[in-house]
């Protein structure tokens, strides 16, 4: 083997180091670029009416998306109310009872697959189950689709968090005479509280920006929808239709909606991180 000169090897090392530093800079730059555009364009288009009014007559520059914000809030809340508890208790089963058994391993595997299932497929599934059966698009269908997306996420994080609770804590609770359910709900949950809260917040953050599963479950609406029984507007689906409309006035509203979406998602994500760090201290 021909020995390579040390100067050349050092040069290669320097070049690669520079490239990898540039790659990191590139990543940050793209992140900053996206945030910058959303904030600048969104801020220009946003106003008080955006938060309080219904969409105006088609293609007008007035009006707002108050109904879409309400729709998103209601569907996310209902989705969370269904998906988070089921996911949480599934996590309890995996961490406390199933552990490394055959059943738990199988469920864990299926949960991973469900987590990787494209959200648009979840939308198709809910369409075939809820929309076809009920005969109409509805906010309930949208909420169910969101719940299905949250379910495996919550199961996974709650299992991971519960597994971190030291076994001594379980044993001491049981040794004091607490039955298993009491030990889980009152001792282990309390020890894992911040972690579980973080998991729930991240799951909510994840679905509150979802569009694909809502496209043909909750559809969209230009009116108030207080009951979720009929087609329900959401910020994300409205952003999509407005962006594709080709009208500058509607595109501006789509940017304003994007700003609201990104602020909501990022603040939830950052809050979740903060909650988790609190625990470590």
């Amino acid at each position, binding site marked *: 083997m021909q020995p390579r000169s040390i100067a050349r*090897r*050092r040069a*290669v*090392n320097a070049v*690669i*180091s520079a*490239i*990898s*530093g540039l*790659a*990191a800079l*590139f*990543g940050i730059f793209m*992140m900053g670029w996206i945030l910058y555009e*959303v904030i600048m364009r969104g801020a220009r288009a946003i106003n008080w009416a955006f938060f309080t009014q219904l969409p105006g007559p088609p293609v007008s520059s007035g009006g707002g998306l108050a109904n879409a914000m309400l729709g998103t809030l209601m569907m996310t809340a209902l989705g969370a109310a269904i998906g988070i*508890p*089921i*996911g*949480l*208790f*599934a996590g309890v*089963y*995996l961490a406390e*009872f199933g552990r490394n058994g055959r*059943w738990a391993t199988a*469920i864990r595997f*299926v*949960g991973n*697959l*469900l987590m*990787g*299932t*494209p959200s*648009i*497929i*979840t*939308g*198709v*599934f809910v369409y*075939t*189950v809820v929309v076809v059966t009920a005969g109409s698009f509805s906010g309930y269908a949208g909420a169910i689709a969101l719940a299905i997306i949250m379910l495996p996420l919550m*199961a996974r994080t709650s299992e991971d968090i519960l597994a971190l609770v030291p076994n001594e804590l379980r044993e001491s609770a049981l*040794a*004091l*005479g607490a*039955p*298993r*359910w009491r030990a*889980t709900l009152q001792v282990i949950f309390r020890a894992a509280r911040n972690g579980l809260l973080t998991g729930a917040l991240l799951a909510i*953050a994840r679905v509150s*920006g979802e*569009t*694909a599963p809502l*496209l043909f479950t909750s559809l969209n609406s230009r009116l108030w929808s207080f009951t979720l029984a009929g087609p329900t507007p959401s910020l994300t689906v409205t*952003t*999509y239709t407005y*962006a594709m409309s080709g009208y500058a006035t509607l595109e501006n509203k789509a*940017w304003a909606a*994007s700003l609201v979406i990104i602020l909501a*998602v990022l603040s939830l994500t950052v809050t979740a991180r903060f909650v988790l760090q609190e625990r470590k201290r």
Partner: protein
Amino acid sequence: MAIIDQVSGTTASYAPKSIEKASVERKLDLAFKWFTAAAALFIALIMAGIVANLIRFSLPAMKAFGLKFLADSTWNPVTERFGAASSIYGTLVSTALAVVIAVPLSLAIALFLVELAHPAVSRVVGGAIELLAAIPSIIFGMWGLFVFAPFVAKYIEPPLHSTLGWLPLFQGPPMGIGMITAGMILALMILPYITAITRDVLQMVPPVIKESAAGIGSTKWEVTWNVSLPYGMSGILGAIFLGLGRAVGETMAVTFVIGNDHRIAASLFAAGNTIASTLANEFAEASEDTYRSALIELGLVLFLITMVFQVVAHLWLRRVQKTSGRR
């Protein structure tokens, strides 16, 4: 059943106040256990429901078009003739583009985070890149359509055309809307996932091994290339497969920028479609039964493609974990 035994084993080990109360507690415990088991089973139930319903609702299209569905690139709602070829092609090409762009970038960023940057810098940069994963896909779509696609049309496609234009891949007018833009945005979206796993893999390489390589005079790059990467290769491959699985089913960002055209074009500059973008674009309007069924069969194809990537990735990563545990 084996599941029950574990609980009764633990509840029996505390001293009850009265026998009566103990039996109530035991029943409650059993109920609690079955309740959580039911919640866990629900996950499997949903999965089974997805598979069953996708198949059931695509039966009409399967009967009408048979296996030809996969090879036919016609997509005509008016004559009700549907084939998945252009969507499958677009899905695979956009995913391949995304991986080809994202993998080297992710490796370089992970290298920077683990080996080169000061830990404080690494934490900030790593956090910022992880935040990229939190940005919803519709935001990538908005940015892609209104900001990035014009940028691509002006600054990326013309130079590609003038230098590599002899390849059929880079011919045609630079529109900005098309396969190449979709691939680049997908790359940006899977970047944080591949970076995060690669970073973890590189961090798991035992310092002793790296130090011995450095001790015989290797430069940092030589340590990474000859020691760390081979050591973590299987983990990185798993990360790439997980990234593939994500890119394949990504919907909104792609729908915004790909142009939604049911044609197979040789050029990456041309508009195309993916399975997910076709579903997003057409499903709500599909009122004819055959049309809807063909769309759901497209969904089934997408589901199967993602499952293949996922299963390969998980089995692979699990094997890797087992072997590295034995070491």
